């Protein structure tokens, strides 16, 4: 009598032997079902694109749960005027306000009429205001003053390309129109300067704190000498 091989299917086919005989396929099907069940199509703010940081207008200042370490930068940030971030890169952080530092603000005190009419009213040889501003941001035909400065509301605000008025505290929205890569990194933390400490709340400097909007490569990349002599033995030639 020939021994019955274990691999032969039994005469009475029930479900269990059928599944077991096709075990790899059955396991693959089970895995697929589990994976599909885990995916939630309603989860739009997923980390797939932005690595965990949720983008979108979130408005108000963060009210984060107190962290386990209990440390905070709030004391060091006391007295620093700051605003919540608006626009495309709004998130759980604030930006240091700059409007209070503008010397000749509000602009309305002089700009009570449109720039065209203002120029017409002032003789040519008296048009010295803002002459010290050196424009080195882009070719003059690409960016005129009015590209960023709104000729409305007394020029107290900046303007986005679609005409939206933006306060000077939120000038990052103007920069972010073209410099979106840097703005994304700035909002995330890989670009720019953090104020206070590493502990929350997170407050960062505005773009204009380091980049003069009219001459952006200054002062952050100004050539200068190092502030100390490094302590290293002089290298021999060829090494």
């Amino acid at each position: 009598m020939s021994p019955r091989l274990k691999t032969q299917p039994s005469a009475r086919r029930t479900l269990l032997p059928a599944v077991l005989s096709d075990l790899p396929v059955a396991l693959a099907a089970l895995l697929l079902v589990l994976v599909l069940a885990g995916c939630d199509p309603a989860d739009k703010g997923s980390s797939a694109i932005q690595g965990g940081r949720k983008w979108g207008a979130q408005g108000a200042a963060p009210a984060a749960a107190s962290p386990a370490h209990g440390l905070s930068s709030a004391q060091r940030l006391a007295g620093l005027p700051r605003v919540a971030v608006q626009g495309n890169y709004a998130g759980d952080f604030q930006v240091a306000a700059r409007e209070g530092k503008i010397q000749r603000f509000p602009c309305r005190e002089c700009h009570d009429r449109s720039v065209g009419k203002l120029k017409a009213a002032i003789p040519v040889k008296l048009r010295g205001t803002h002459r010290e501003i050196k424009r080195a941001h882009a070719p003059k035909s690409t960016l005129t003053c009015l590209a960023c400065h709104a000729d409305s509301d007394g020029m107290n605000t900046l303007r986005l390309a679609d005409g939206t008025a933006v306060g000077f505290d939120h000038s990052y929205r103007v920069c972010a129109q073209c410099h979106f890569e840097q703005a994304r990194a700035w909002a995330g933390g890989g670009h720019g300067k953090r104020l206070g400490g590493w502990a929350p709340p997170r407050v960062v400097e505005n773009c204009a704190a380091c980049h003069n909007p009219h001459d952006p490569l200054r002062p952050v990349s100004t050539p200068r000498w190092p502030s100390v002599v490094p302590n290293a033995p002089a290298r021999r030639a060829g090494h």
Partner: protein
Amino acid sequence: MWLVGLWQGLGRLRLGIWLHIGSRDEIGHGAKAPHGQSAEAPQGHGAEAPEGYSAKAPHGQSAKAPQGGSLLDKPMSRRAALGTLLGGLGAGAGVAVAASNPLGGDDSREQSALNFEEFFKGNYQVMTAEEKRATITRLERLAQLERGVKVSISGAEAPKGVLFGYAFNISKCKGYLECVSACVKENNLDRSTGMQYIKIFEMDQGSMNLEHGRTDFYHQVPVPGKFYLGTQCFHCDNPPCTPVCPVGATWKEPDGIVVVDYDWCIGCRYCVAACPYWARRFNWQSPQIPQEEFNRSQHYLGNRPRKKGVVEKCTFCIQRTRAGKLPACVEACPTGARVFGNLLDPESEIRWVLENKKVFRLKEALNTEPKFWYYAD
């Protein structure tokens, strides 16, 4: 000086020898031990004898003395008697000198007493909270006496739920060395030898070979065609420098900072040899810090003044970071090339950099797991 070192070394391995003297059985043997030791002790150091030593007979004879009999009645050899007398005299003289310095004032006496107690304290890792408080009080008082300044030394423990991480943007660093300058001032580094924890490499663009980079540049920066890359202690998660310490003077704290107990370090420099990033520094000379630049906010494991013969290194400004502040280098950088934060906080800047930038570390193949990443714009 070497005698002190020898003594310290012996003391680190086992201080129990003093506990065993009382149990010595042999007459001559028990008498010789203290006699020999006290002759080696450096003068005026108060000797190795703890308080009350001279009160107890310096050998095991008292344990075997007949009940009710005094030392003078016991039969003993001339050798034992001589040893007893001289040992007692030596120990007594040592204690007397320590306690009453006839040439110094009250301050010097207090200083000697404080130094005496500091000499015998244990490893910081095994101290109780009370002992830690006591040593910090002593160190603060010593700073007042020796330097004439009021310092505050923190013993802040690692904060919960925190693991510190660091990122460096090689596109932004321009070689200004503001970080180096801030670090020297913040951490009370020795000015006489120009001790610096941070090294900035001036590298040719297109090359990642640090052996061809220069750390000794001193000219106008940035130079076109070069990029700048900074190194310091990377506070590895798998540090090669901590297991090699023969006395356990350096270890990794729960918040990830690798620290050194400067009072336990014997200066063998095994850790200096073990570090693949050349992050550690040894004090070949006694550190000199100008009084007007002395940073008085200190931490026991951080920027309190070190002494000649011990190893030190970047501590991620432990005196600042355990209070929620940024390290001095991060705060000083004018281009924002340095990022610091809590790796365990998913919303932190360092986490964003690690998740969204192409980051690399140095010498990855060594599996040291440094907590210091580099990225570019």
